């Protein structure tokens, strides 16, 4: 059955992208239906994660007071973990608390809040409804199919996240029928409960600070993976992000993404930080990291694609930024719909105003710049050689051996021991330096 809805716009998916789009549309006076497959907002969503920046302010001026965020990042750690060693840069900056550069978040909480915010703003919200497909007439998107029934609208904003079934079935991925393993990483994550006072003491963050730690995981099997630890209010987020294309491809080698998570969890450095913490949740989620070349079609006749579904997520294995781009792309798409409503024209040509806005607001520019960063960091040497190289070098400098040798000698020894050549070191340092 086809039901003609009174809504000019249907948004599918109430993650950060879908909520931002729906909220913006309501604020601009456009009626919108937001459909979410989880019964409760956020119950399907998972990130690391640190919400960077202040992008919600445009939609919710008081978001920092209202949104159930965890801790502001006041301590940033970046490190290389060898088999038994850890080389970690530990940066504490109290001023980051006031500027609140980033907050640790748990998506089941933040997204439930956002959905409520949408409802309060007058968005019509339905939850527990899975959109099975986009509804098309003559190749033009005219609505959505749920429970076998069609609901029409002038335009559909597809915000169904990284594992975007709708862009696949709705043919919005340049003819691709399957997502490409080179363009996705898998994040595996555990949430661990830890006594607040113990956490604040152990991480030197005090009552009102928080720690964001990201680590390159040294491995000699060619698998590229990064690890993260974030402090929440009274839990820790602990996880790995695994480059799928580098998993072993031969039959019988059963090293799994779960094993990589276990190895990280059981690393002596991580064990010391998580000691006494109790597991309360295990989960996993895809991370788009193909950048520019992996974007879905962004605008089509009757449809726009936003957030992770479109590919607006940047990851280099250790740092991920997706939530901020989910919000920004959601806002751009909403404004493009407002533009189309004004013209009463929902063709791809009119809706491509979305792309113009993505350029104008700097989203596209960021992804153009990211192109090179990603290449510099997802570099096999970063994972196979540098963790050892750094451990060897600093062990030399910082232990009894240290004062007897010159810095240069330590460097040469470490290069020899870990098999890094001078040329490699120079090139990698230069590319990383130029792109960070």
């Amino acid at each position, binding site marked *: 059955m086809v039901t003609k809805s009174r809504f000019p716009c249907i948004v599918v998916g109430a993650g950060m992208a879908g909520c931002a789009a729906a909220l913006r549309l309501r604020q601009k006076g456009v009626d919108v239906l937001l459909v979410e497959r989880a019964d409760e907002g956020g119950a399907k969503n998972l990130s690391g994660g640190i919400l960077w920046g202040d992008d919600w302010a445009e939609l919710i001026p008081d978001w920092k007071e209202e949104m159930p965020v965890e801790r502001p990042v006041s301590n940033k750690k970046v490190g290389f973990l060898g088999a038994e060693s850890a080389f970690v840069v530990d940066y504490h900056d109290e001023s980051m608390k006031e500027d609140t550069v980033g907050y640790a978040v748990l998506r089941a909480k933040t997204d439930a809040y956002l959905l409520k915010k949408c409802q309060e703003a007058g968005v019509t919200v339905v939850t527990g409804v899975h959109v099975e497909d986009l509804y098309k007439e003559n190749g033009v998107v005219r609505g959505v199919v749920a429970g076998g029934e069609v609901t029409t609208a002038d335009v559909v904003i597809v915000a169904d996240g990284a594992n975007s079934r709708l862009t696949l079935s709705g043919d919005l991925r340049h003819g691709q029928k399957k997502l490409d393993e080179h363009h996705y990483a898998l994040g595996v994550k555990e949430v661990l409960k830890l006594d607040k006072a113990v956490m604040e003491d152990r991480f030197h963050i005090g009552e009102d600070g928080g720690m964001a730690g990201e680590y390159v995981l040294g491995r000699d099997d060619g698998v590229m993976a990064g690890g993260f630890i974030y402090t929440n209010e009274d839990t820790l987020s602990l996880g790995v992000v695994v480059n799928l294309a580098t998993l072993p491809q031969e039959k019988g080698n059963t090293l799994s*993404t779960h094993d990589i998570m276990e190895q990280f969890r059981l690393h002596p450095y991580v064990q010391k930080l998580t000691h006494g913490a109790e597991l309360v949740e295990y989960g996993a989620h895809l991370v788009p990291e193909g950048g520019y070349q992996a974007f879905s079609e962004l605008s089509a006749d009757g449809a726009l694609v936003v957030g992770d579904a479109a590919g607006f997520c940047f990851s280099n294995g250790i740092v991920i930024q997706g939530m901020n781009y989910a919000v920004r792309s959601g806002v751009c798409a909403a404004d493009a719909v407002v533009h189309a409503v004004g013209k009463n024209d929902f063709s791809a040509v009119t809706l491509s105003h979305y792309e113009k806005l993505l350029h104008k607001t700097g989203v596209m520019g960021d992804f153009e710049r990211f192109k090179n960063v990603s290449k510099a960091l997802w570099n096999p040497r970063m994972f196979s050689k540098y963790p050892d190289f750094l451990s060897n070098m600093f062990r030399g400098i910082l232990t009894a051996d240290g004062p007897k040798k010159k810095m240069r000698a330590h460097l040469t020894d470490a290069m020899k021991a870990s098999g890094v050549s001078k040329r490699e070191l120079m090139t990698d340092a230069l590319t990383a330096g130029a792109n960070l």
Partner: protein
Amino acid sequence: MQDSLVNVKARLGSTKFITDAEEHAHITIDEDICVTCPHENCMNACPAQCFEKIDGRMKFTYEDCVECGTCDIVCTPGSVTWYNPRGNFGVNYRYG
């Protein structure tokens, strides 16, 4: 890696699921295609270890699936048929 299997199932015990009836299993595999598979990457990739080889046949169980979509990506032979569970069913994160 039997240890690993026992391990992941224990850790998944902390996660909340609303499990749909078996006839509504959201993912299915074609075991006959799996027999010809050159890599069996589903076993490495799945974070919930829903794929297990028993007596030379690939077996899939949907109950512990966290709906990440990875098996569909890595299954190049096309054995995996992937849908989201029906509304409200499946994994229900309390933290995320």
